[in-house]
């Protein structure tokens, strides 16, 4: 009996830890179950002046404090610790081996920690609950229902999920939640109830393709992406653009985690042919495997290399080293990581103070930016309304012209059938030592599909991002 108990305890302990593990110091836990965190440890004092306008809100913040706008600091920025019942928001994020987006919510939490040390939402703390979908549709569906029906979140914001948009679009619509995400599947960019801080893998890979074609990729473009339920969408616009340019296109879906990177990259480069283009659509751990394998196999100069946003990560630049200096074109949906703009200063300060284990990277920027959007939206509302999901979501859908240093143009939500509010990009390249450096400033993503054509039209008609 004793033996049986020991084995059962060991197995159970292993299962629990495997399910519940997370980054060591980050307070946002996305690796299993849920986490509620409202504590904070220090303050922040970066300053800037940018403006946010929400048309669905009520009064301004009470007392002497004014809500901080982009870069001015954390929330009310008054140095007073928030107290009382928390205002609860939540999201659904994917965190499994090979596809781990937990860095995004970690910086959203870091920003909330700073806000809670600086007056919170009119004195009350803001709390983040992150649910892991474990890359399973049933978990994604359960997570959304738990957040809304059990945790009673007032808003679903900051989710970094492969599945959330596809699985829960109808549910959010039914419940009247206007969700802010960092989206992956097509549904994140084609639904009235989702607006993303990013532009997603399809538009990002398209931006990278525009650059490598400009830089001389000829003949054939090969794109690579992890094999998931949403793979077909991820590189689809690469194909459309290649066709427009009279080039061949082939897409390779590959199982992750990639166990044989050498074989995978030799095959991809062979398919692209000498002088062709190769687009990678992977998270840093997987992308880095392929790039290091290409380096070992002497393939760097065989093709022109491009990547979607996730590889815009300084840890990737540090790992790549001199061999890749200037040779990997990474589409950056967000501003450069060492951009001196005030809001980016604030991001770096908060990252260092509240999430020191997180590298500076795109996912983290997005989490930070979404945190600022929701905090500012809540601060613009009548304090009596911030516990009412209907009023909070009304304020969210009416966000427009949210000025931020993190994306090229002001961010907005708006009442649209589909949202791609971030549709201008940068191009960055590894500098050969330790950072990604700017190669091309803000450029327009080619409107090769009907969604982006309609979005651009609505932006002009409704003055959604005129600043």
């Amino acid at each position, binding site marked *: 009996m004793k033996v049986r108990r020991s084995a059962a305890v*060991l197995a159970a302990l292993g299962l629990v830890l*495997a399910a519940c593990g997370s980054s060591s110091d980050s307070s946002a836990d996305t690796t299993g179950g849920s986490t509620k965190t409202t504590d904070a440890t220090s303050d922040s004092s970066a300053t800037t002046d940018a403006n946010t306008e929400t048309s669905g809100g009520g009064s301004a913040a009470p007392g002497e404090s004014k809500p901080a706008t982009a870069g001015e600091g954390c929330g009310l920025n008054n140095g007073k610790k928030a107290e009382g019942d928390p205002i609860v928001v939540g999201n659904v994020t994917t965190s499994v081996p090979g596809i781990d987006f937990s860095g995004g919510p970690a910086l959203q939490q870091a920003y909330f920690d700073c806000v809670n040390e600086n007056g919170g939402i009119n004195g009350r703390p803001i709390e983040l609950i992150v649910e892991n979908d474990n890359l399973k549709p049933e978990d994604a569906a359960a997570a959304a229902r738990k957040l809304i029906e059990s945790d009673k979140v007032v808003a679903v914001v900051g989710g970094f999920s492969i599945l959330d948009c596809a699985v829960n679009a109808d549910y959010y619509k039914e419940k009247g939640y206007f969700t802010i995400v960092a989206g992956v599947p097509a549904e994140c960019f084609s639904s009235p109830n989702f607006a993303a801080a990013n532009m997603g893998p399809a538009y990002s890979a398209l931006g990278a393709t525009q650059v490598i074609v400009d830089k001389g990729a000829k003949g054939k473009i090969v794109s690579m992406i992890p094999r998931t339920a949403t793979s077909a969408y991820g590189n689809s616009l690469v194909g459309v653009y290649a066709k427009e340019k009279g080039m061949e296109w082939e897409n390779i879906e590959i199982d992750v*985690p990639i166990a044989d990177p050498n074989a995978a990259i030799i095959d991809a480069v062979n398919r692209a042919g000498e002088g062709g283009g190769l687009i990678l659509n992977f998270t840093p751990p997987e992308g880095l495997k392929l790039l290091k394998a290409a380096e070992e196999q002497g393939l760097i100069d065989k093709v022109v290399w491009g990547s979607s946003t996730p590889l815009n990560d300084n840890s990737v630049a540090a790992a790549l080293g001199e061999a890749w200096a200037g040779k990997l074109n990474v589409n950056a949906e967000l501003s450069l990581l060492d951009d001196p703009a005030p809001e980016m200063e604030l991001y770096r300060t908060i990252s260092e103070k509240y999430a020191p284990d997180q590298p500076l990277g795109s996912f983290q920027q997005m989490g930070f930016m979404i945190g600022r959007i929701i905090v500012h939206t809540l601060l613009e509302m009548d304090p009596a309304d911030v516990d009412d999901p209907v009023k909070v979501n009304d304020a969210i859908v009416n966000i427009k012209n949210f000025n931020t240093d993190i994306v090229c143009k002001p961010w907005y939500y708006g009442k649209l059938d589909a949202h791609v509010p971030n549709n201008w990009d940068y191009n960055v390249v590894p500098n050969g030592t330790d950072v990604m450096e700017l190669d091309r400033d803000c450029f327009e993503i080619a409107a090769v599909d009907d969604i982006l054509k309609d979005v651009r039209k609505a932006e002009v008609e409704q003055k959604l991002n005129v600043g």
Partner: protein
Amino acid sequence: MPGLGELWPFLIQGLAFGAMYAMTGTGLVVLYRTTGVVNLAFGAIGAMAAHIAWTLMGGSLTKPIPVVGGVRILAYPAIVLLCALLTLLYGLWIAPKLARRDPLVKALGMLGAALFLQGLMKKGWDSSKARGILFPQQTFKLGNTIVSTTQILALVLSVVVVLAVTTFLNKTATGTAMRAIANDRDVSSLLGVPVRRVETMAWFGSGLLCGVVFLLLPPLFKSLDQGTMTYFVISALAGAVVGQFRSLWVTFWASLGIGVLESVLTPFKNSLHFMADYRKLVPYVVAVVAILWISRRRTVVLAGREMQ
């Protein structure tokens, strides 16, 4: 159908990974024959040791693939030592408590240990970040492909390991004792074989093999991916299954074959593209076919004993 020239680079990659399967399979077979335990934590233990070594090497977010020099070079042998110690720890602490249980319970014990270690890794080393360990190596051109000394070393070591373990089992007193325990644990014990001591040695030896594998595996993976390393053992099991958890040489050749087949299917295109898509299934297909072939004997296993 790709030509031989096109397949050549994939053959090289496949031989290297097949060699890693072979060494892993050897470790699994030796431990199973001596203790009756299928070490499903082989990969998790190796991955944990590699992560600790990465930290000892000075790895960080700004140095995700640390260049090792000075005293930090000791982190390489530390991988082998840590693997041996972690495996031994399980062998001394948990395994005796399950010694008289069914093989299924023993395997579940190892699975629990693997998940426990994976949880610890995820806790300590955020899996969303890129990490790697370099192994000092040179590359040279062979035909139309680049070959690294790490790949050569993997192949050479796998042969050396199988030769050494076979010789050890056949020529030494401890090896004979291991084989005796493998044949019948109870009878061996009655005949005075120090079962506990021999089993401890088997655990330690299996751990050393795990260390050798994980010295080379991260450089071949180009990453310290927790999932890939933890579940590497599952693919490696196929070779051991073909060898019926008995023959080291059959395990060796089957593992090489699986590694090569898995790799050479990569460049198949057009109507044969499905072969590339499903190449990861090779170990499982081989294992299932082997099990079906072996089960022709209609052997039934009850409480760890074969009933003819």
